[in-house]
């Protein structure tokens, strides 16, 4: 039973996301479109399963929702902060810095999400990952205390991602 389920739905979340994207693309919720979206959502993961052999086995989808809400709020705050820095801080007084974030996350998917989150939030752009994937290089636009920024990234985002990708 479980094996049949695994063969038919190798990636249930991807199935739902594809169906949702299809319905949104149609801009119209009709039963036919929902059914066709679900068909696409079942066929595409089966056809592409060979290209993601090492995907994470456990992944808490529901814990993504509070994470996404926090990130959205941070994006709004970040935009206002960066706009303020752009408009008020002269170039000579700007204190950009590199910070190195040691990673506890090991899965490539989780590191990718962390890097994307860092780029979208307060004055930070994730620039590079170390050659073995144990640290992340982040560029900060304007900071007085690089260590505090590093701790905030670790406490606010990485800790939550560790819960999502155990």
């Amino acid at each position, binding site marked *: 039973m479980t094996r049949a389920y695994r063969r038919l739905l190798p990636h249930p979340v991807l199935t739902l996301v594809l169906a949702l994207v299809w319905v*949104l693309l149609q801009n119209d919720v009709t039963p036919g479109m929902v059914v066709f979206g679900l068909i696409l959502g079942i066929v595409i993961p089966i056809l592409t399963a060979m290209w993601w052999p090492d995907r994470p086995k456990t992944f808490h989808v529901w814990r993504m929702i509070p994470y996404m809400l926090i990130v959205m709020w941070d994006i709004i705050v970040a935009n206002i902060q960066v706009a303020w820095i*752009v408009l008020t801080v002269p170039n000579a007084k700007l204190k*950009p810095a590199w910070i190195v974030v040691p990673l506890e996350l090991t899965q490539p998917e989780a590191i990718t999400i962390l890097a994307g989150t860092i780029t*979208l939030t307060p004055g930070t752009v994730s*620039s590079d990952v*170390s*050659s073995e994937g144990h640290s992340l290089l982040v560029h900060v636009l304007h900071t007085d205390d690089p260590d505090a920024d590093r701790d905030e990234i670790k406490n606010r985002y990485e800790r939550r991602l560790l819960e999502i990708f155990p």
Partner: protein
Amino acid sequence: MTPEILATYAAALSLLIGSFFVIVGVIGLLKFNDPMTRLHAPTKVGTIGIGMLLLASMLSAYAAGDPSVHELLIMAFLFVTAPVSAHFIAKVSIHRQDCQQPPSPPRDGTWSTLDSPDTRGDEQPSP
């Protein structure tokens, strides 16, 4: 005050906020003088600027009586792709040494961008 009129006002307000953030992004791009700091303004301010413009589009479509949700998809794809392009620009400026060079990572040998045959092993690669 019908919902349509309220939606029109809200659309106008989000257009104004969105345009403000886009302008700030452009000012930042022109004002800063280092490739890495210039990267910050468009990546961040762009997301909320475009997001507010798309919100205005949704609201005005609703006010016109033809609701649309395509904008949610545009926003989702934008939020996924914006960090990727920023990441690539950052990697290019590290590789070309256009910016102040980053400190070495604590546990591994070097950063993956610098882990290439022409830069590995010597501090000052020949031009």
